[in-house]
């Protein structure tokens, strides 16, 4: 069984919103219909987006980390939004695990959005149907595109390569290895939704300086019993009089 998903590396994401705009551009131009925007340059802008990049501050000043956090539909393996849909418009594809909305069946009752703990479904207020990330289902299987471009628009756009795309059920895939090797995790595990999208945790960037980086152990001048003078800590005029 295939389960396509995104794996997002929080260590790499710089919060540039390129994935957001790329997603919007691709998905508002497709055959499935536009994504509304109201007052985009006005006082109270609002619109439909499948992907958002949020920013959190972790810790207390001065020991803080800024976490940029991209969020889109997680394509849960047990999606709570699917069984509640009264019309069957919300469904999970057997073949690749993508959770989709059939815009021709959706009645716009918003019950699925209530049933999603992650807040990733947004009703389109002009088309009156529920919309959400499709993992660019109209891109990833498009054989008219070069094979390297058969990826979601957000993945294509990410300049830092923070977004990985692949089959998390295939243990040999890049995303599976990224999850395994970097401790990839799911959001809100307490609800048992088993999201397919995973996040790779932040790890502290440290420059490891070892003693031998500062002082060569194989220094030819450093012969037993005849240590170079003056001592390493003392001031010197040039490299030679040092060690």
């Amino acid at each position, binding site marked *: 069984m295939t389960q396509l998903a995104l794996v997002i590396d929080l260590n790499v994401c710089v919060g540039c919103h390129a994935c957001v705009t790329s997603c919007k551009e691709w998905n508002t131009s497709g055959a499935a219909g536009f994504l509304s925007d109201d007052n985009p340059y006005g006082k109270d802008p609002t619109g439909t987006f499948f992907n958002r990049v949020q920013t959190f501050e972790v810790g207390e000043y001065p020991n803080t980390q800024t976490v940029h956090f991209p969020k889109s539909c997680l394509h849960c393996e047990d999606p*709570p939004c699917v069984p509640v849909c009264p019309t069957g418009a919300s469904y999970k594809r057997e073949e690749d695990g993508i959770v989709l909305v059939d815009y021709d069946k959706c009645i716009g009752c918003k019950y699925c959005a209530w049933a999603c703990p992650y807040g990733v479904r947004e009703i389109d207020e002009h088309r009156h149907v529920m919309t959400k990330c499709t993992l660019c289902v109209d891109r990833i299987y498009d054989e008219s595109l070069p094979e390297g471009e058969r990826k979601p628009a957000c993945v294509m756009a990410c300049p830092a390569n923070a977004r990985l795309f692949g089959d998390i059920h295939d243990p040999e895939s890049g995303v599976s290895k990224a999850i395994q090797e970097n401790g990839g995790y799911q959001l809100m595990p307490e609800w048992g939704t088993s999201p397919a999208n995973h996040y790779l945790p932040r790890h502290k960037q440290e420059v490891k300086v070892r003693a031998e980086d500062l002082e060569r152990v194989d220094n030819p001048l450093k012969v037993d019993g005849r240590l170079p003078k003056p001592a390493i800590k003392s001031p010197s005029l040039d490299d030679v009089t040092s060690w």
Partner: protein
Amino acid sequence: MRPALSVILLTTLIGVGQGLFAALYAVQVFDRIGLIQGPASAAFYPLGCAIALVFLAVGLGASFFHLGHPERAWRTAAMWRTSWLSREVIVLPAFMGCVFLYGLGHFLGWTQHPIAAGLDGTLIIGALASLLCALLFLCTGMIYACLKFLQEWHTPLTVINYLLFGSASGLMLATAYAALVAPGLVRFFAAWAVGFTLAALIGRSATLIRNARLKPRSSLQTAIGVKHPRIVQISQGFMGGSFNTREFFHGMSNAWMRSVKWTFLLAVFPVPLALLIAGLVGGLPVLLAAAFLVQYVGLLAERWFFFAQANHPQNLYYQRIS
């Protein structure tokens, strides 16, 4: 959550319709057993069913305003295997049909079966309608109770409260209705109305106490998967509003929430009970009607509070515009 007027009207109005029908059928059953004297007026059942149907139909009509594509509403019957909303959409019209047949049966005098003597046709239709009535309460309540991460709703009390509030308001209406059509039944209905209103008070109080002690299972830590005690949102990712900032929060102050709570606690329970008793003692039907109206308005506030109080975990992601 942001309470939607259409859903508030739907749930309160069909509750009244269901309660009124149950009251009518209870009279017939109790009359049949011989516990009470049935109504003298032949119009009692048909007219009562017509009133119940008006409430159910207006409630059903209100629900359409909640839909983005009401013309596709017929599709909602498709997923009854998994969706409580779908089940409600099936049960509500079926119940309305049975109430219609029940009223029609009384109007046309199907009380005596032409072949099997003593077999009351309306009693059978009424039994079926009662079953659907109970199912409808279950479906309506479960639509909310089945959402496990809306912890304020995820309790059997939600279903019980829908049942008790619907029955209480229907019985209040039945009391006022009986005062006009079948005065002999006023005390019967009034006693049941008091009983159900008190039961609803217990059920709702239990829910309020439970919800006041709830600990949210989700936190910013689980929402973004960072295990640090101090996390604050700097930006939700956009500078305006969105569906997510509008749909899931009522946008009112705590003081407003408290005042709505006390409003419904007064308007649903003590005030209608006082009016009901005053109407009974003074023999004033207008007070009985006022009891129903006050309780209904109180129920609108109760339902508003029910929706508003539910705290959706998605709000963790949408806290700060910048």
